[in-house]
């Protein structure tokens, strides 16, 4: 079966805005994503190198804040929901398929390297920005946080600035 068309972006944006508003009204906090990755990294390190995590400040702070249960974090549960919600959406729109998306002009190895490096940079940048596109930019815009809006402008401004150099990856 053919994949269904995507939702009208304005309608999707409106629903996303309502989801974010409900999140703020119910929990007092916004949406996020990179925080769950952080939690997972701390969990892995806690198991793999317990002595190291007990000493290094970054892990130690995180573990103290979470009473030594790094997975007991709101964003971890939220991301579990994201996986479920996206899966259901893919299912009803016939988009469930193992594929490696890339421009026909580049090799799949190039795409793999790009995805890995891009992910690395995003993971690193999200730590400095105290949140990613969801946690800092979108949620920050909803509550008009200065830091959130600055990070948003830097993300999109940066992407436009660097886009030219990586155009061969996409067009």
């Amino acid at each position, binding site marked *: 079966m053919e994949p269904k068309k*995507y*939702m009208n972006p*304005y309608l*999707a944006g409106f629903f*996303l*805005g309502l*989801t974010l*508003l409900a999140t*703020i009204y*119910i*929990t*007092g906090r*916004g949406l996020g994503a*990179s925080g*769950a*990755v952080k939690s997972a990294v701390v969990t892995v*390190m806690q198991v793999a190198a317990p002595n190291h995590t007990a000493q290094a400040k970054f892990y130690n702070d995180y573990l103290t804040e979470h009473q030594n249960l790094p997975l007991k974090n*709101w964003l971890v549960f939220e991301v579990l*929901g*994201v*996986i*479920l*919600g996206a899966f259901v*959406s*893919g299912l009803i*729109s016939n*988009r469930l398929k193992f*594929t490696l*998306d*890339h421009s026909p002009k580049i090799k799949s190895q190039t795409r*793999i390297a*790009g*995805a890995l490096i*891009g*992910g*690395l*940079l*995003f993971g*690193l*940048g999200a730590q*400095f*920005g*105290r*949140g*990613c*596109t969801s946690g*800092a930019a979108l949620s920050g*815009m909803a*509550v*008009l*946080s*200065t*830091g959130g809006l*600055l990070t948003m402008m*830097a*993300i*999109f*401004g940066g992407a436009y600035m660097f*886009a030219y150099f990586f*155009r061969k990856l996409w067009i």
Partner: protein
Amino acid sequence: MGPLVPDIIGNELNFIVAIFIGISFGFILEQAGFSSSKVLVGLFYGYDFTVLRVFFTAGVTAMLGVILLGHFGLLDLSLIYINPTFLWSALVGGLIMGLGFVIGGFCPGTSITAAAIGKIDAMIFIAGSFIGVFIFAEGYPVFENFYNAESWGNVRIFETLGMSQAMFAFLLTLAAVGAFWMTTLIENRVNGKPNPEFKPGRLYIGLTGLAFLIGLSAFILPDIRESYMKEVENKNYINNYKLKTMDSDELALSLMDDDNTLQIVDIRPADEFKSLSLPHSQSLTLRDLFIKDVKNLLSIKHKKYVFIGNDEFSSKQGAVLADMLGFNNIFYLKGGLELFRREILNYRKPSGLNTRQEIDVNRFREQANKIIPVIIEKNKNSTAPLKKTKRVLGGC
């Protein structure tokens, strides 16, 4: 009043709520096409502005919603998480993420969405983001100073820019609508043909008008707290407002009885409260009456809330504001603390006592004059300041 966590929804239940919110988040992202890196990076090469449309519509919707909920007193904005601002770290982090965006084609939220429907490149992106967080964690001692530099606190953009919240919201809404129109034109040019979905038909002109009106509404509606404050500053309004009173003798009797249904709300300045505070009293400012913690304090059944200020007017101001905000059993101290001082604390027997009533009152006041200062002295260090709930901790 929101946020519902932790009073109405407990911290444990909040994790279940998180799953449902996530389902909605993931479903919408996937339906919008955010599971495709081709759609996502289209924004940076001009052939597909879906991301901008979804992102800005969502941001503006949520922003206006937050402002309106705050305006109608349904959400306590002093409790919600405002991403703190650390200038340099925010900017450099954003630039690194921007670079990651054009190289990797995803952001963390969209990569999770895409991985959920089987995109292998998204799974690799997630693996990359683990490494990125790991690098930050290991390098934290090196980054720490930079990470915490130029800390501005939980500032909001309109404060930074020195304009009103409504003004900024209005301008941002306008900017979003302008960007929607412009990017559609750019997209048509880059693709060499107009996208039939966004022909500037009646629907989109209507939507533009609607967005404009909603943006404007945030501007016209003054902050509800400010309009309340304006009314309680109005002398005539306060003087004509009908409210129950309590006089000095009644208050003295309640204090001597150690009446547990009595809750005094003392709206004098904090330092005056410090030098003289009555038992059963809580020191608050007028503006404190808007916050959620005070709502809990003033909503206990069977309690009598007696507002006291230095004079009758200021006592009544507090009581009127509380009554306007919908609290029950609100009283104000007749004559304020001034009269209470004269009639009880510094009571002097008047020269002539003629009627039976005058003699009774005198007897009571002489007694109260002896007992109440003792009660006050005993109570001196037991009045705790109001425990204010801290902001919710959020962020990534």
